[in-house]
């Protein structure tokens, strides 16, 4: 079996004059957890729908589990759409079992599997309730379970965390980790960077239908230089000459209760610069620091850095 479960080459989709997805290339290795990130309307859902062959691309090729169409391997794929919905009158176990039978599982095994999953993820007591009696979050959990009940090799979850409380977000994170441990490949799209940071090995960042980043989380973080924030009464622009410091700029002081005359400085440093050197330099030159903040670049910063401007423009267009 190929070690790549999904590959997209030059895939595009247009709706009239609007290009929803523009020449996206992608390759997802087997057994990985892959994050689709991007602002609203970036083309994530369209890409997912094309992967699943619910809609056809106008250009490009998609290969899923070694086949040209996901329909040919539909029993080996699990899918949770962005807009969640279930048959309201059906019982919880029955709906999980129903979707599993649609994916080729025998009726009896499907029922057994439904009860197993409900027990494992804390919904055993609701097995015989109808879907309409569940809360939104619980309904969403049920839908996640129905997308994995047939033990698919590739699982695509579109915004799985939206609408879940922090406890259930953790349950879902654990579920994704379980799937990964089981050797299954998971692709999920999200707005919440912390989940992507914690779960994903690789990320795809798209905006306005175009790929802007595809790589590991560390590679993403490396896009933005690391930052040191200093607060003092002095001018520290001269730190720019220090080895490993890329640039220094003064930024408005954030927060209240500062001593009058306090200035805030942002230093961008090279990837492997030791912050101790900066601290040492300040000490040697008698610069009295009221704050020294050396933080790792978050995915959030990368996201805002890469798509922030476009997303804001898009929002007000």
């Amino acid at each position, binding site marked *: 079996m190929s070690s790549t479960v999904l590959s997209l080459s030059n895939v595009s989709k247009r709706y009239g004059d609007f290009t929803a997805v523009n020449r996206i290339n992608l390759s997802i290795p087997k057994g990985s957890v892959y994050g689709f990130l991007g602002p609203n309307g970036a083309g994530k859902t369209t890409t997912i*729908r094309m992967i*699943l062959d*619910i*809609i*056809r691309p106008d250009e490009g090729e998609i290969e899923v589990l070694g086949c040209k169409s*996901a*329909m040919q391997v*539909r029993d080996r*794929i699990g*899918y*949770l*759409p962005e*807009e*969640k*919905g*279930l*048959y*309201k*009158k*059906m019982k919880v176990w029955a709906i999980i079992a*129903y*979707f599993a*039978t*649609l*994916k080729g599982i025998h009726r009896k095994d499907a029922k057994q599997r439904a009860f197993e999953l409900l027990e494992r993820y804390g919904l055993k007591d609701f097995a015989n309730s109808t879907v309409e009696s569940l809360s939104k979050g619980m309904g969403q959990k049920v*839908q996640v379970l*129905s*997308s994995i009940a047939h033990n698919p090799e590739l699982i695509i979850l579109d915004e799985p965390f939206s609408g879940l409380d922090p406890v259930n977000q953790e349950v879902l994170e654990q579920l994704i980790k379980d799937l990964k441990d089981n050797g299954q490949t998971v692709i999920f799209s999200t707005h919440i960077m912390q989940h992507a940071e914690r779960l994903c090995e690789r990320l795809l960042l798209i905006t306005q239908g175009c790929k802007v980043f595809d790589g590991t989380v560390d590679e993403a973080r490396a896009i933005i230089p690391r930052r040191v924030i200093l607060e003092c009464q002095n001018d520290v622009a001269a730190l720019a000459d220090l080895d490993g410091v890329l640039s220094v700029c003064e930024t408005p002081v954030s927060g209240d209760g500062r001593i009058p005359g306090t200035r805030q400085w942002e230093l961008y440093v090279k990837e492997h610069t030791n912050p101790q050197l900066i601290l040492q330099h300040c000490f040697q030159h008698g610069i009295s620091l009221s704050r020294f903040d050396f933080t790792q670049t978050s995915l959030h910063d990368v996201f805002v850095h890469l798509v922030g401007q476009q997303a804001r423009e898009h929002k007000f267009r």
Partner: protein
Amino acid sequence: MRVTLLIAWREYLENVKTKGFWIGVLLVPVIFFMIFQLSTRLATATPTRYYLLIDQTGQYAESVETAIRREHQRRVMQDFMRYLQENRSDTANLAISNEPANQMDQLLDDFGNDEVAALDDWLSNGGLAFALQMARPYLRPDTPDFEEPRQQFIAAVPPPELDITAPAETIVETLRPFLNGEKRLPVGDNNVSLFALILIPAEVNNDIVRPMTAMGGLPTDSGTRGVQYWAGNLTDTRLPNAIQTSINNAIRQQEYMDRNIDVNAVRDVQRTRLPVSRMDPSKVAGDEQVSVADTFRQWAPMGFVYLIFISLMQSVQYLLSNTIEEKSNRIIEVLLASVTPGELMMGKLLGIGATGITTIVAWLASFFAFIQLYQTIETTMIVQILDVLLGSDLIPYFVFYYVCCYTLYAGIFLAIGSLCNTLKEAQSLMMPLMMVMMVPILTMSFIAQDPNGTMARVMSWIPLFTPFTMMNRAAAQPPMIDVVGTTVLLVVSTITVLWLSGRVFRQGILRTGQPPRIVELWRMMRRRTG
């Protein structure tokens, strides 16, 4: 196919598991049963009506009273015949028996052929007492006693303050409060309301209309003339009809006598009759006589057309609401990751089709249960008619046209459902199609009367009408060209509609926003993929 059947099964269960479905299914036989019960009970449930007869001429009172008595005796005789048919000891078919084997059958046969003559015989033989005595040996041992129906019209005594010789206007004024229900008449220990006043004024004979006096037109004055019938109830016409007939009979008898014509000879002449045997040329020699079942068979297709129509209306609701539920709940996207739109559409079509068939089977089952459990002379007759019907070629026609009609319309309605996000949107789109479906129902009785006429033939060739119209014509041996031609056209149209609906469904099902315009719809039908 496996997936299609799974979808069909879920659709089917979802529909038949709802309370609404079974209420809908059971309501039809319950209503049927209630109508049946009511129609038999209502006749006896009519309250006793009290009338006041004031005959200032003294000539007609007896005739009117005789007529009312005769009307009562007619009901007694009818009830007795029914009692006899239901309780006779042998179970032979009485309702459409042609060979009377004994005296009782003779009575029943006479009753069936000429009720007026039978009533004369009934009265001259001594009425109920004689009939009961004659019938007793033929009744089953456990037969209950015959219950004579209540008198429906009883003569009341005029109130003491009324002067029956006073002018008509005075009498009416005196009795008006009684007729309006403001006052009640004492009858025995009770006070009753007066139903009607029959006032025959002293000079009524001056108003007799004869052909020679009526020449040149009806009387010119617009005042009240002839016998006056005063009653607030305008719908119960039994009493005024009996009065009119009886008084006119009395006048005519008087006229015969005045002209020296033998009254008995006239009566005999009036009773002379020649039966008309209705024959069907399409039946085998010797068996051409048209029976009740044959007539029923000619009308039965209308029943089948109704059945198709009602079942289709029910299915349409399910087709639309289930599709729209999946669309608005966004279940559709999960489904489409597991099944193709074609499989989904076919699954729905089959599942809801099975729901429709379940409805029809449930109706038929409750109908059969009803005629088994509730055996009366009418239901026995229905059983015989059903035997004829089930053995006829109408059933295969019905099955074929039902399947085609359902598939044709279901295809269109599924496409409509796939384009709409709410039932409200769907209703405005389906309105034109509903109007189309009404056409065969509105023209149904015309087509039944002239099954091979121009209208029937033209409508048969319009695929949306074909199943209804051809079903309607099924008992009338339509020309072979119509049967074969319309069948081919219908099958081809159904397949085409399914194919086009499939295309629309595929694209419509993931659509959001307003339903498409006609041009857009046309584009969807032509486009190959989504």
